[in-house]
């Protein structure tokens, strides 16, 4: 950033996961020289969440939180050595006009610029009944609690057949559990994969031993002091020792209430991630328009998004604090994520969930392990791609389908 003046002043980053860490690193890269404080609700330094539904959940023996954290902790750039991490310090409220944060323990902290990177928490089923035996999976502590509950013969009901639900089901199966997945839609991961690929992935799981009950909701949880059974909306009862609730997420925005922001689904931002005079947002909690697709602001819960949004949000905030206008170039990140389930690796580029139509391009859905490629379309435009077990060397080409329109955007905004 040679030639562009940086900013000083104190920046508070609220949220110490991937987006918060990357925001701190990118603030330094963008030329911010003032102090940075990162507040994290969890007691752990920033760590990578995807392994929590897979390797960490499946790993044998070790239940020591610190050793497990060390396996998934992010390495930090040397540029953030002078950043203060306040962990186990949840932020309860922010006053943007006064530049004050109130922590959950009542203490206050000031800021000149603010990054909202508080992410999501799991949505829970609104069902009464016993709590013991009910789990959600988002944090390392959630993972540790679930891990301790799973073993050979454990009867597991997974509510929700999205990506997290399907990954956890596959891992629980590997641990020797009897696994039933309950999903209101007709197929798992239907909104992203579409019916044909969703059906194929379901059959692949079923062949391995996971049972699916689709088109059904969980209606009640039975048991006196802990979960004994889960009742579905057609009256069917599934005996269960463990209920895993994988029914989506809720953005953590309550702490920003009272500042006149649009918090209806995450933090509403412009295309440069600006949400207020000195507020930017990054990660799962940021709702922003992506000109790759259209001008409608959306939150994107893909692993690539915290890194991309943090970079742009940091540049925007640094410019705002230095009294400069943010970079007007369109921000059009290519969303991508992967999901490992059994022997399958699903890789997604773009936004398949926006599509009206799925097209099978390569391979046989009955033999997913050998490689399948599907593309997703809306109003005649290619908006997403899903590859199953394709060679990694193909990924550049698959992603490039979405970076080409970006060049067009940059030239003709």
């Amino acid at each position: 950033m040679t030639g562009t003046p940086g900013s000083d002043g104190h920046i508070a980053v609220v949220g110490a996961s991937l987006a918060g860490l990357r925001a701190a690193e990118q603030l330094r890269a963008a030329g911010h020289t003032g102090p940075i404080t990162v507040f994290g609700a969890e007691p752990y330094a920033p760590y990578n969440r995807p392994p929590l539904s897979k390797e960490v959940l499946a790993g044998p023996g070790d239940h020591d939180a610190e050793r497990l954290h060390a396996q998934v902790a992010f390495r930090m750039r040397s540029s953030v050595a002078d950043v203060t991490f306040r962990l186990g310090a949840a932020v309860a409220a922010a006053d943007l006009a006064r530049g004050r944060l109130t922590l959950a323990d009542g203490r206050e902290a000031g800021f000149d610029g603010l990054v909202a990177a508080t992410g999501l928490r799991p949505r829970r089923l609104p069902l009464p009944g016993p709590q013991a035996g009910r789990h959600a999976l988002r944090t390392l502590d959630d993972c540790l609690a679930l891990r301790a509950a799973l073993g050979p013969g454990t009867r597991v009901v997974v509510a929700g057949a999205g990506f997290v639900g399907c990954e956890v089901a596959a891992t629980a199966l590997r641990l020797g559990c009897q696994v039933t997945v309950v999903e209101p839609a007709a197929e798992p991961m239907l909104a992203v994969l579409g019916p044909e690929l969703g059906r194929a992935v379901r059959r692949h799981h079923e062949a391995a031993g996971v049972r699916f009950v689709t088109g059904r909701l969980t209606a009640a949880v039975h048991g006196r002091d802990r979960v004994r059974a889960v009742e579905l909306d057609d009256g069917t009862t599934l005996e269960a020792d463990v209920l895993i609730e994988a029914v989506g997420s809720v953005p953590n925005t309550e702490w920003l209430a009272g500042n006149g922001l649009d918090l209806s689904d995450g933090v509403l931002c412009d295309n440069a991630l600006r949400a207020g005079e000195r507020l930017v947002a990054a990660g799962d909690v940021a709702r922003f328009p992506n000109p790759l697709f259209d001008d409608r602001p959306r939150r994107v819960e893909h692993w690539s998004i915290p890194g991309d949004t943090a970079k742009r949000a940091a540049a925007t905030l640094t410019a705002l604090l230095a009294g400069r206008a943010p970079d007007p170039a369109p921000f059009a990140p290519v969303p991508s994520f992967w999901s490992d389930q059994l022997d399958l690796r699903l890789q997604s580029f773009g936004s398949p969930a926006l599509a009206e139509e799925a097209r099978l391009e390569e391979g046989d859905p009955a033999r997913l392990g050998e490689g399948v490629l599907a593309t997703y379309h809306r109003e005649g435009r290619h908006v997403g791609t899903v590859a199953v077990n394709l060679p990694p060397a193909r990924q550049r080409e698959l992603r490039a389908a979405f970076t080409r329109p970006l060049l067009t955007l940059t030239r003709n905004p």
Partner: protein
Amino acid sequence: MKVIVDMAKCQDHGQCAIAAPEVFEMNEEGRLVYDGEPGEERRLEVEEAADVCPVQAILIKD
């Protein structure tokens, strides 16, 4: 600059080869091959590659 990939961690996601194609490449067998001592002019893209590695297997030594 020295680049070290923890091959015990690497799961051949190939994201590094998208971020820094001059330094990382997925070969025909789908395995990673990489330049362990790229020039300093590649620093930004190598940092990007380390950031986007889903299993955080890439270490940059200055």
